[in-house]
């Protein structure tokens, strides 16, 4: 290790861990992370890439002549694959959010911060930006050196390349994000020709700048200072939760030694190489115990494993393990709290799927014409006029017929085979004609029903009244 960066990284080894943590936090030094390879980093790559590709490619997928996933704000329609959500489906959105929350709780209680370490966009984008940084500015030591150098053409070139790389990824991210709201096949050409509307351009700019600053500069500060999940995750943890842990019993007392030498029996396995600190994206020392800054990314596990391998010691000095396992105790089974999370999750999933599957693909509302209470019709009959609002929420053009319940002798004028294209709302005036003598009261409760021609089970109902004069 070179001596220069020993000054930059916190001097954990020299002082007790607790004080050094506080000290470091106060001084807020820039964290230079060292890149590392290993089992968990490959795992992160394999989970990260599909998610990333999904994010960037999904807007390009078309279905039924429209973008497959599109949140159409002006039309107030959210298209997710073949399902279209309307404003009246807001309850489903609430269900989705509750499901997402309980999934997070349950996963956290069982396996710790999987979300943070592997799937959180903050982590994934930070990793991309760190990769770019490494690509253009070199390894950790080279970067530290570069930052301390006076400005030179070489430095300028490296920095420019890095920031262009960041800017490119940030712009791609911003455009892609906005393309979930404005179709990408329309947005991209408009952006390139600078003819997109001001709102779209401002949002692209906003998300680009936000991504750039966030993944380029804020990085771990979001996790340590802003993210609420980091702060309340400990309420979900129990003694069986998997967390990234340093095996103190095995590691201490730490100290350097030569490779493949028989070590002093009083000495621990930790050789105090500080690699675990250097790779940590939040700049903590995992050997100080579980800290809220730890996002569970397992970089330190991979780092330590690589060292232990070289030292000829068994891997797993830093590992995913639970408090119980470390203390040599058996797992006490899934605690009630976690079972509660899982139960809540199951209930919400059931509620969500039944609501989604049973929601009607046609909607009907009825308003009675108020201009006249009733209208005289030939042969002593009377008419009531209604306006129906019919919405076809299915993916196909459909025809609907109107049925009425609640009266015995009546006829419906109009309202047969009302054709409505997919996703449209139609107003239809129809008239009911009845013999006033056949009606028991001056205001009869009736029920309108719209029945789909494509699928007889698709119906919608709405109540109204039929008014007759007092006899």
């Amino acid at each position: 290790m070179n001596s220069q960066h020993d000054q930059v990284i916190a001097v954990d080894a020299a002082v007790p861990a607790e004080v050094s943590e506080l000290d470091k936090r106060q001084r807020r030094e820039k964290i230079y992370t060292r890149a590392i390879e290993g089992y968990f980093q490959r795992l992160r790559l394999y989970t990260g890439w599909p998610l990333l590709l999904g994010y960037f490619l999904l807007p390009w997928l078309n279905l039924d002549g429209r973008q497959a996933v599109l949140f159409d704000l002006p039309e107030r329609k959210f298209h997710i694959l073949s399902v279209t959500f309307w404003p009246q489906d807001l309850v489903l959105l609430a269900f989705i959010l509750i499901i997402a929350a309980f999934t997070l709780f349950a996963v956290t209680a069982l396996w710790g911060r999987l979300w943070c370490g592997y799937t959180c966009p903050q982590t994934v984008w930070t990793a991309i930006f760190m990769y770019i940084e490494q690509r253009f500015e070199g390894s950790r030591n080279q970067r530290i050196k570069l930052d301390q150098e006076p400005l030179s053409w070489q430095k300028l070139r490296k920095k420019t390349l890095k920031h262009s790389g960041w800017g490119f990824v940030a712009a791609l991210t911003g455009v892609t994000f906005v393309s979930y709201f404005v179709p990408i096949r329309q947005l991209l050409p408009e952006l390139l020709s600078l003819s997109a509307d001001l709102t779209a351009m401002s949002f692209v700019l906003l998300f680009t700048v936000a991504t750039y600053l966030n993944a380029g500069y804020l990085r771990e500060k979001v996790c340590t200072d802003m993210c609420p999940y980091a702060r309340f995750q400990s309420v979900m943890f129990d003694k069986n939760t998997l967390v990234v842990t340093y095996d103190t019993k095995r590691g201490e007392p730490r100290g350097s030694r030569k490779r493949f030498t028989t070590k002093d029996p009083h000495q621990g396995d930790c050789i105090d190489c500080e690699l675990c600190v250097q790779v940590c994206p939040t700049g903590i020392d995992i050997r100080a115990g579980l800290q809220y800054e730890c996002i569970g990314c397992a970089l330190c596990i991979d780092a330590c494993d690589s060292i232990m391998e070289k030292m000829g010691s068994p891997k797993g000095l830093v590992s995913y393990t639970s408090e119980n396992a470390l203390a040599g105790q058996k797992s006490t089974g899934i605690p009630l709290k976690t079972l509660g999370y899982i139960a809540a999750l199951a209930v919400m999933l059931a509620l969500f799927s039944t609501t989604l599957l049973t929601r009607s693909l046609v909607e009907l509302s009825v308003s009675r014409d108020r201009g006249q209470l009733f209208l005289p019709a030939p042969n002593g009959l009377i008419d009531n006029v209604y306006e129906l609002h019919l919405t076809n929420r299915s993916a196909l053009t459909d025809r609907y017929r109107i049925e009425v319940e609640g009266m015995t002798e009546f006829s419906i004028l109009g309202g047969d085979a009302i054709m409505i294209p997919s996703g449209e709302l139609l107003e239809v005036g129809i008239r009911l004609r009845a013999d006033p003598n056949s009606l028991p009261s001056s205001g009869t409760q009736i029920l309108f029903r719209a029945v789909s021609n494509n699928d007889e089970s698709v119906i919608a109902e709405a109540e109204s009244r039929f008014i007759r004069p007092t006899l």
Partner: protein
Amino acid sequence: MSDFWSVWIIVLTSAQLIAALWILLGNRKKPAQEIKTTGHQYDGLEELDNPLPTWWVYLFISTIVWSVGYLVLYPGMGNYPGLLGWSSTGQYDVRVAKAEDQYRAMRDRYLAMPIEEIAFDPKVRKMGRRLFGNNCAQCHGSDAYGAHGFPNLADNDWLYGGTPEAIKATLIHGRQAAMPAWQAILGDAGIKATTQYVLSLNAREADPSEAARGAQHFQTYCAACHGADGKGNQLMGAPNLTNGIWLYGGTADQIAHTLRNGRNGKMPAFSSTLTEDKIHILTAWVYGLNRTPVVAATAANL
């Protein structure tokens, strides 16, 4: 807002901004070498007395700077309207104008096409129904089948003609019907006789001798407008009295009432309410009611 409240808000807003900035900067500390604590302890956790994070301080200052810029550009300081002159009603007007431009282009395309061609276009049916719902349904009913005193628009019986031109003229200029009151001229007996004659025109049960006398009255007073055969005259909006369609009811009492007191049905003019393109679409919608589309002769059905 009165001047007092305007000043009140300006003073309060400015004072708060200045106070926020003052508290922030006044309490700013340099990072200390050793760790200071506030002396509070709980469960072994100490509350530190570190300075605010720099990025946070700059974020706070930038929100204050932002608010000053905002208050200069937008309304916020009491009655001061802001340099940009923005208002919520102004924003609404702009959006309405934008939507109007967007839809006008579409309607203008239809305006250039003859009524007969566009009457069955699904888009025209939809737009027309909306226009009808907003402007006409109150009187003519949601289904356009009319009501007492308001004609049915879907039965192909037209008071003023059912050609596209006639419907459009009705919409633009409105119509004022003028059926005079005949009580003073015909007297009770004359009204009764004429009523019987009108009933007989529809092949309904009528007193033959009364009807014969009524026929004379009819030829003298009514034929000028309703025609010698009672089939009406669309040029003056005189209804056909022989087809069993009654605007004001077809019982003997109702017919007698109409004769005695006259009728003055009024269709308002829509030229000042609706633009020409909207009237064109509305005309097409009304024209297409209860009419089967004329299928264009294509190779397939020749």
